[in-house]
């Protein structure tokens, strides 16, 4: 049964007030709902150097009620593998190992260790919270940054390349469960993490996590910005269960009713796109349309 009301979500909060994340943080909202879908005490989180490290607080205080094992930037997939192996070897059963890494730690420096873990079919969930750049270190370009975005390492020309298609890379590893999510659609996200928890093998969930300081929009607009991304087709909500592709939540609704929002609608509230050229805007719209049409086609093929 899909979650349709906030009353259906567990009331327990696993993240207490006083995190060090920024106001309006997309990761924070993501993590809050993901942890509600997991068992307190039986969840071990692997975290690379990232916004997540900061969210977890500065020693000796943490606001998060899980076992969190921090690891070097490139090592998340390997650290999670070691946690799973160590738990098995020492007879600690019933734990869910969840890696939480940003796009830099996933698309870029962590891709090798992630690919290794997925290829070995390690029994864990990998969540990539994609805020489209190195936001913790000051908004530098990553391979997840979109075309036309100004970052602190693409300060004048803005980014000249499209975002990497990480899902296709992950899918090439033949996983039993892959999903995307958004903090703006918490029920969808909650249901996906809950489902993933009971799947055996490597599971991958990618969350589009808007970042007010990194993208340049007011803190209060986090949920709105996340929704706009879905409605414009920049990011789509779907899941791939044993290869079967299905759009979900708002993306499924748009698939049936048609898209009303454009890339221009999405970028106008974000200062990172202040330098985008008309040519790049057109390219970004084309890229988005092509990708959306591929997803639509795949959805209706798998769900006739």
């Amino acid at each position, binding site marked *: 049964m899909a979650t349709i009301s906030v009353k259906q979500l567990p009331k327990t909060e696993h993240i207490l007030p006083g995190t060090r994340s920024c106001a309006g943080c997309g990761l924070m909202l993501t993590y809050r709902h993901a942890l509600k879908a997991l068992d307190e005490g039986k969840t071990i989180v692997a975290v690379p150097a990232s916004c997540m490290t900061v969210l977890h607080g500065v020693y000796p*205080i943490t606001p998060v009620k899980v076992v969190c094992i921090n690891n070097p930037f*490139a090592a998340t997939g390997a650290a999670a593998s070691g946690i799973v192996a160590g738990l098995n070897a020492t007879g600690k059963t019933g734990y869910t190992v969840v890696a939480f890494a940003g796009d830099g730690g996933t698309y870029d420096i962590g891709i090798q260790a992630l690919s290794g873990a997925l290829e070995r079919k390690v029994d864990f969930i990998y969540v990539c919270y994609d805020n489209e750049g190195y936001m913790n270190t000051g908004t530098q370009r990553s391979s997840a940054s979109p075309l036309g975005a100004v970052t602190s390492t693409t300060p004048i020309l803005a980014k000249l390349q499209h975002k990497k298609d990480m899902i296709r890379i992950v899918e090439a590893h033949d996983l039993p469960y892959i999903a995307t999510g958004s903090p703006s659609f918490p029920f969808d996200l909650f249901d996906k993490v809950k489902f993933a928890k009971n799947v055996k093998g490597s599971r991958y969930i990618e969350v589009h996590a808007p970042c007010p300081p990194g993208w340049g929009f007011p803190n209060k607009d986090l949920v709105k910005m996340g929704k706009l991304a879905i409605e414009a087709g920049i990011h789509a909500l779907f899941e791939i269960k044993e290869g079967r592709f299905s759009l979900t939540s708002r993306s499924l609704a748009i698939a049936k009713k048609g898209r009303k929002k454009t890339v221009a609608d999405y970028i106008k509230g974000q200062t990172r796109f202040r330098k985008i050229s008309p040519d790049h805007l057109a390219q970004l719209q084309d890229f988005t349309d092509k990708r959306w049409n591929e997803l639509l086609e795949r959805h209706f093929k798998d769900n006739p």
Partner: protein
Amino acid sequence: MGEIQIITANTAAALAAKLCRVQVVSAYPITPQTPVTEELAEMVESGALKAEYLTVESEHSALASVVAASQVGARVFTATSANGLLYMHEMLHWAAGSRAPIVMACVNRGVGAPWTILNDQQDTVSQRDTGWIQLYCRNSQEVLDSVIQAYRIAEQVQIPIMVCYDGFILSHTSTPVDVPSQEEVDRFLPPLEDRSGIDGQTAMNINPLILSDPRPNANGVVMPGYMEFRYRLQQDILGSLDTIKAADKEFLDIFGRNWDGSTWTYRMEDAEHAMVSMGSLASECTLAADSLREEGLKVGVVGVRVYRPFPASEIVESLSGMKTVTFFEKDVSYGYQGALAMDARAAMYDCSSRPAISSYVVGLGGRDVRPDQLAKATLECTKGATKFCWLDVRS
């Protein structure tokens, strides 16, 4: 009772890991370490060793995964060489900072570029400042015994240990090794006490962000800052010299042999001149010392088994009063000298009477080093010429 087997140092290391009942093995293949990983894989697949084996995609991941497995309470093992060890460099610091009692076999090999697969000790010596204990072995028996001792030491002081041995010279050379029984090893090495704290209830943030200064926790108790944690590592690795010696002594009680703690000496009782070295090269120095003795020179050898923590007082004690001391080593700190000579020379400032010191860099990238070359070089140094040079560099 043990059983004599004709085996290589690589097999000795793998057998030792098995006898220590390691629970998680994670490794990436690199020559000349590969047989260690292959033999452990076979033990795990055949069921002879009950362990998780991770065939990771890199050395960085090999060490990252054993650190994490160790943090959740498992006894772990890995092995590497040369560029693989260099690729682990970030994780070496992380492992020591994590206080993970990892044991790693390091099969010494020269580092690229240009590529060499042959022996020298540049790989491990370059990692001396990472907070690991480093043991250098003379022969395959010492490799086997040192791996067993290393778990005992590492788990007492919560500091990871590299057991270093020379590539090919030891790693691929079969010699008789007394392989102890499981019962003997079990008597020496108790099961790993689970200090992970993972109990299905307690929340923890392991290796979080930390500030420089101490800071109160939620109950108002002041907890250490970054510098205090690093100071503890330094104090504990310095203190581990005693643990290393004690473990070696207890090893003698159970197995009937030991490895002289941190340094060993050969014909030093009446020596006037000393040769100092590490690993199999130090064994070779004993042959050179014998031949120089035949020529009437009173030469002895000091072998450094523990390079970190540095056994400064033992070295000073052994070398005080020598007329000359000559270092031989298969590494160099580019822009200065051999690292062992540098460290020992600094320690010998405290000698009551300071010997004339010379040092040689030898045998890089597998260049053969013969006892007669060592003897000739030592002889020159006994004539009083203090020098730093490379042996056998051909024009």
